[in-house]
């Protein structure tokens, strides 16, 4: 076989190496960053609702706080989407998709929910965003043969999060 011939020649003569270099040390993937970012989105929606419920004058301080919540919500929804896309695009392989044929659809759903979480201040949407990423985390850990559990995050918003049983 041709490859074998090249490999044998390589062992004999030592061909040079050409790096197809990646930024991340390849192999480091963990959906927890996306899960935390999605939880942050829910937290920001809660803080926005809380601030709004106080009523009164829309003072400069109010505008400032609201702007900050919205900015963080925007950033974290986008970060969650980005981190999921990296795992989906760079980590998931054909054999994983054979076992989890719904993964593509789920990732698309996450993208849609992430966008909707940015466009609105709807808590239910943000909660669905967290849950869809949880389901993705379950798939991810299954591809590594690692079981998962669900537990409430030990901070606000205390939503269920999928954690690996390491």
């Amino acid at each position: 076989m041709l490859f074998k011939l090249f490999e044998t020649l390589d062992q004999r003569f030592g061909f040079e190496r050409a790096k197809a270099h990646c930024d991340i040390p390849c192999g480091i993937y963990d959906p927890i960053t996306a899960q935390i970012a999605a939880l942050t989105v829910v937290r920001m929606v809660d803080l926005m609702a809380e601030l709004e419920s106080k009523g009164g004058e829309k003072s400069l301080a109010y505008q400032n706080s609201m702007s900050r919540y919205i900015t963080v919500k925007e950033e974290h929804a986008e970060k969650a989407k980005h981190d999921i896309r990296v795992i989906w695009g760079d980590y998931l392989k054909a054999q994983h998709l054979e076992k989890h044929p719904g993964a593509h659809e789920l990732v698309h759903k996450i993208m849609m929910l992430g966008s909707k979480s940015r466009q609105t201040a709807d808590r239910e949407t943000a909660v669905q965003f967290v849950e869809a990423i949880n389901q993705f985390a379950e798939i991810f850990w299954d591809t590594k043969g690692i079981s998962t559990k669900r537990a409430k995050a030990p901070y606000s918003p205390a939503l269920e999060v999928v954690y690996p049983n390491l």
Partner: protein
Amino acid sequence: MFRIFRVTGESLLPEYQEGDYVVLATLPFLFNPIQVGDVIVFKNESYGTMIKRVQSVDNDTDRVFVVGTRMDSVDSRRFGSIPKKSITGKVIWHIRKPGRNT
């Protein structure tokens, strides 16, 4: 005229996989110019000998813009276009490692 390299790293997945071999046609490129879409091997001061795909060629400044296929690829998006004189050669033959899934 020809040189053989082994690919390390995964920035050109799924087409080029870690462990694949490539045969390069080396300089001069007078009759075989670098074109968009070519996969080339070049030397970078920071990262050493690299393999990437050509996204664009600027013949006025003799520089080319190279990219990997993956989002986290370190390429011209990081270190800018590369001078043509840093190019070792372009891939004319790709010998794939057997047993790949993708």
